[in-house]
């Protein structure tokens, strides 16, 4: 078994107090734990969008694809279809996954492709210096909306349930103790796993005291109906003050996209044979 520190020597450029650190360390710990449980480190692939969150691709010493803004999920999908043996994890931002590339998030869930999507949801565009995102509250004063936004936020958990995600949870970067098992759980879930992680942006949207006063741990309710799950998911609408549940909200066993694919290997010789045969059909 490799003994790797798992953190690269790339200089870390997150702001002091940034919630991304918690995610970085949680991932490191979970990778180490999973390695002990027999998953070799080469089997992890981290796919990221662009934003502060995405720098994690440089910081964690595992396979990575540092892709483009909003497009981590299709990249991850390609990797997973090609190589079902890999654990493909997307670290994406809320601007990334809920604005620029929202459709891919929904289609990932719809396909139940067996990847894990972790949204570093700081409810702001961090790297581009503080504009609103689809989960910013109504009236958010960002640099593109100095007079306040004109839209209500989306509730990503509800959206994911509707879209077919088979694992849905919410984490919080100030609750590392919960974050680790959540990440591990999501990674090990077979099917499309979705985690919305409330991540503190120390510079542009530091609402940790608000979160601290509202969060509580949810307990999984295995026998629940779909409507009951929705009700729970809607307890907090990302806008008004309400109790904010952390933990696993939903989990379902279902065939994944890969489960439905069967492909055989064909040699170069066989290919030529097939081409000849096709051409004969076209005489």
């Amino acid at each position, binding site marked *: 078994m*490799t003994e790797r520190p798992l953190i*690269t020597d*790339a200089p870390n450029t997150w702001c002091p107090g940034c919630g991304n650190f918690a995610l970085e360390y949680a991932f490191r710990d979970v990778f180490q734990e999973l390695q002990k449980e027999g998953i*070799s480190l*080469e*089997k992890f*692939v981290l*796919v990221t969008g*662009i934003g502060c969150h995405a*720098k994690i*691709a*440089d910081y964690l*010493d*595992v*396979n*990575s*694809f*540092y*892709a*483009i803004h909003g*497009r981590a999920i*299709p*990249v*991850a*999908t*390609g*990797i*997973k*279809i*090609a*190589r079902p*043996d*890999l654990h493909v994890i997307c670290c994406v931002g809320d601007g990334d996954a809920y604005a620029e*590339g929202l*459709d*891919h998030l929904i*289609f990932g869930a719809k396909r139940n492709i067996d990847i894990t999507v972790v949204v570093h949801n700081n409810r702001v565009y961090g790297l581009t210096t503080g504009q609103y995102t689809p989960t910013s509250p109504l009236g958010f004063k960002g640099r593109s909306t100095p007079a306040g936004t004109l839209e209500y936020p989306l509730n990503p958990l509800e959206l994911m349930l509707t879209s077919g995600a088979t694992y849905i949870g919410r984490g919080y970067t100030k609750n590392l103790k919960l974050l680790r098992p959540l990440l591990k759980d999501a990674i090990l879930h077979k099917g499309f796993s979705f985690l919305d992680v409330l991540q503190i942006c120390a510079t542009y949207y530091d609402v940790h005291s608000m979160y601290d006063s509202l969060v509580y741990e949810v307990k999984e309710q295995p026998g629940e109906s779909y409507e009951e799950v929705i009700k729970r998911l809607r307890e907090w609408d990302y806008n008004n003050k309400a109790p904010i549940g952390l933990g696993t909200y939903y989990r379902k066993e279902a065939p994944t996209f890969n489960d439905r*694919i069967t*492909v*055989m*290997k*064909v040699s*170069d010789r*066989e*290919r*030529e044979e*097939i*081409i*000849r045969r*096709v*051409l*004969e*059909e*076209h*005489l």
Partner: protein
Amino acid sequence: MNDFSVLIGGKAGEGLNKAGQILAHLMGRLGYRVYMYYDYPSLIRGGHNFSVIRGSEQKIAGHRAGMDIVLALNQDTVDFHRDKILPGGLLIYDAYYAKGEGMAIPLKQIIEQNKAPSITANSGIIGAFCKAVGIEWGILEEVLHRDIPPKVLEINLAVARGGFDAAQEHQKLHDLGRSALPFITGNEAIGLGLIQGGLTTWVAYPMTPSSSLLHFLAEMSDKVGLKVIHPENEIAVMNMALGFAAAGERVGVGTSGGGFCLMSEGLSLAGMSETPIVIMMGQRTGPSTGLPTYTGQTEYHFLRHAGQGEFSRFIVAPGDANEAFYWSTVALNLAWKFQIPAFILTDKTLSEGGYSFTIDEIRKVPVEDSPRWDGTLPYRRYAFTESGVSPLTEYGREKAVVKVNGYYHDPRGITTEDPGIVAPMQEKLLRKLQGLDQELVSYDTVNQSGSSGAVVALVCWGSNKGVCQEVAEHLGLRMVQPVVLWPFPVDSLRRALEGTSRVILVENNATGQLAAMMRQYGFAVHEQIHKYDGRPFTVEELENRVKGVLP
């Protein structure tokens, strides 16, 4: 020389593409080399569709304006095409749905007698055609056996026989006594060439004229162990394909202009991250949705420059099915060998046109790949090398940490903003073009035909190859066709144009895209012939246009 053209026309939904194929197969049986042009508007039923099938002793890749036979399933066909009938030619038409001068066939009656569906009118008029040109019933029967699904074979045979019996012999189509060649579309040739090159995955979103390639590969997927994925849109297509490539698949995507726009951001990511990818780009009449089912040659420069930043790429524009097959294999090889995007640039004329295909004339190309990682640790995805190409490995290899990155990065793939790494990394990206250029020395990147000593040259690219070649032969001109469009084959083109004093460019666009590129490299362009109404040139039309600019 034996050169024979037949046009069959009717409404969309009457199977005129299929009918054209049957006619092509019939001519093939008589030893003809065939080309088929299929013209249809963007609709599913109704409107006016037609196929022109031309057979010749020589291999051809273009159609003529004049028709020996016109097969009219409706009045529109008579009205639109009667003027094209050559002296001594013949109109064969449905006695009920059309009026005209020629041979009327009571298709409606025949169909009713046989209680056949109306779509069998096709077979009926093809029966009449066979009789008229002296093709034996047995040959038609055999072709229909191959081309018509068993479920509806009997009924089609019956209607075809009815048509055959109702017609009279008009002009004997000479049997060349050679065996038939496979008849395939440009897109089928691309698909087969890619399969030959070891394609394992195809990702595409439907868009004319690339859809038929998606359909063909989807049909083939079971047979050749191909994964064929149709995702939510072209952005997903491109990025998913890059994921496949990074995971070790040999992958391609197909699209047309509008879809390609959406891929261009991912293209730039491919460039920066050095992820190989093949892109089939089928041109149609733009701008925007333009004429979705017609042709054009307007995306050469767009492909050349698409995506922010500067990086190496390869563009090839095959001129017929043989070239499409061969260069598709090569494009896959070059994409992987140099870890760059490789474009197969086609247009509707090539992609959906039908061609006699001669696989035995095609130089065999073995599957080539990137240099592979030798296991030295740490793995450096972007190791600096003389060629600019770094040894490749895919995710999951023991001990390798593979970091693919769209930012500027150090050799390990970790983001850097250090100007001392950025500049050599940019050079690495562009240095591959030199290797590519050298590699291409051993390929025929510029085709030449016609009169090799002529001082007047017709220069064209892509699907105009066929018509230009013929016109050059008729008029004693030289024909020069760059097949590789990037890196621009300056030396080969210079050799091909040596001794010419007058260069005439022929393009299906309004501005002259190859002309602009040639000028950039110091080539003189004296005349430009453009066509931009969505229709390809016929031989006659181009010949007249060329005569108009000859001194």
